[in-house]
């Protein structure tokens, strides 16, 4: 960080990658918001004559065992997979931030109690909770959203609490206290604005991780149900055809990987900007 030239070069390299990541995310947003415009076929219309056809100009990602166009299914799937990932991270970021701010501002005994609760949630296996919730309210994307939301917020809570503890001793916060401001005003005006950049970085990166978690649960059969074109479910359905129809696995899997990578790169770029 001491050599400005090195920092500059690093910033430029990250910018280039970040631009690519931004393009990917923008495309995904288009897919999610208006899949009908991009997708050439109905994602659930059957065409049994053309089952398991390899990629061709008519079907760029090939077709599945029911003759459905995999390209169209991947595009329609964006809304489900990314929507759920976004919902999980949005809930986790909002709830985790509030929890972390309260914990960081609270008296020591309450802070300790709140952080032990965070430790407990951290220690609880996500898969077991997902299984339990699936069993209770039924298999589906709703139970995946619920299970992962409940598991996801402690990361934000810890991050924000740490930032709050650091910020509490910043000179401008001391000055605010010296002016006689109350804890609530200090929290909203003098602490929370400085926590948000760290939260944004974490949230951006976490969307990718949440996506992987969502598709993993669907792959295991705890998430989306047929014929929803959710990405994890596509991968699950492709299993019997691994040997004969490679495209069925590779394209949905590839898009999950590409999306997760893009989110991670965007998060890194935001982090670099925050430090600069």
């Amino acid at each position: 960080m001491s050599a400005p030239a090195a920092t500059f070069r690093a910033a430029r390299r990250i910018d280039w990658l970040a631009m690519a990541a931004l393009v990917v995310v923008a495309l995904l947003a288009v897919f999610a918001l208006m899949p009908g415009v991009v997708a050439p076929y109905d994602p659930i219309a059957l065409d049994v004559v053309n089952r398991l056809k390899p990629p061709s100009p008519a079907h760029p990602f090939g077709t599945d065992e029911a003759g459905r166009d995999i390209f169209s299914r991947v595009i329609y799937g964006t809304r489900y997979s990314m929507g759920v990932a976004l919902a999980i991270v949005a809930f986790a970021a909002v709830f985790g931030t509030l929890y972390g701010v309260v914990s960081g501002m609270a008296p020591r005994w309450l802070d300790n109690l709140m952080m032990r609760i965070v430790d407990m949630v951290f220690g609880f296996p996500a898969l077991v909770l997902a299984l339990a919730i699936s069993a209770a309210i039924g298999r589906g994307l709703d139970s995946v959203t619920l299970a992962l939301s409940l598991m996801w917020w402690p990361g934000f809570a810890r991050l924000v609490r740490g930032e709050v503890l650091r910020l509490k001793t910043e000179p401008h916060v001391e000055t605010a206290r010296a002016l006689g401001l109350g804890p609530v005003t200090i929290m909203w005006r003098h602490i929370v604005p400085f926590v948000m950049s760290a939260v944004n970085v974490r949230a951006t990166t976490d969307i990718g991780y949440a996506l992987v978690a969502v598709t993993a649960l669907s792959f295991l059969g705890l998430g989306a149900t047929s014929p929803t074109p959710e990405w994890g479910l596509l991968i699950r359905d492709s299993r019997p055809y691994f040997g004969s129809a490679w495209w069925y696995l590779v394209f949905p899997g590839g898009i999950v990987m590409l999306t997760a990578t893009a989110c991670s790169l965007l998060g890194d770029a935001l982090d670099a900007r925050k430090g600069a």
Partner: protein
Amino acid sequence: MLEVENLTVSFSGRDGRAVAVDGISFSVAAGETFVIIGESGSGKSLTGMAIAGLAPEGARVGGAIRFDGQDVVGLPDARMRRVRGRQIGIVYQDPLGALNPVHTVGDQIAEALRVHGLARGREAMARAVSLLERVRIPDPARVARSYPHQISGGMRQRAVIAMAVACNPKLLIADEPTTALDVTIKAQVLDLLRDLKAELSLTTLLITHDMGVVAEVADRILVMYAGTVVEVGPAASLMDRPAHPYTSVLLASAMMAEAPPQTALTVVPGGTPPLGAMPEGCRFHPRCPRATARCRAEVPVLRGVGGGQAACHHPLVETPEDAL
């Protein structure tokens, strides 16, 4: 106006209790500029923070601090908040960090007025601008609309002072207000503090380690060492004829700065003793050129010496008893 009686600030840690301020007493008269001087670790800043009710988390404050007749030690924070900012203004050392970078300068000054219910909305902003004018900031309306990073360090310290005096407090506590500033700006800020004191009839408690600052503004001086008062008295007599060897060494080292470079440096050997390992007897004896067996065994108490009081068995100035 302000009476501090047997003030202690201590921290309890794993290795027992550490006493950072050990039973100090003093009083500040209305309208006076009272200076607490000492090295880092002498407890001077903690003393100031304790008066404002801002001792750090985990610190235990004992003794009594009467501000305008009311004991503020142990006052619940909700009540102390009405005193802080309103009747006691505080200026800290670091003008860069003291302002919140995401709000405008004017908004932050207005915030001080709003929280104490003195002005709202547009009126608060107008008063913020006139406060900036009062601390001699050129083009105050523009500065009020600026963010802290858009103005210079000296202006920021002025803005911080404007915040501290926004509610027209009776007491201004300034903790190393000039340490982070360069020499010319330092002089300007000191002039400003002196002028404001007259204009607003402020009582000032200035905390510093810089004898140069003291000479400019002090009416009375209190010298702290290792959490205790070693000497207190009127500025003129204390600086002319210090009674405590520590005060004299402090003065000598301040003179050095102005002395020709050939002069040999006088240094005070050693440093402030750590909280857990206070020497027996006089706390200054390991570093004191005049120390005797008595200093190693017996704790000296404050007594009348010269024009003020000093806690020393062998003062540099005659005591009234010695004169008899």
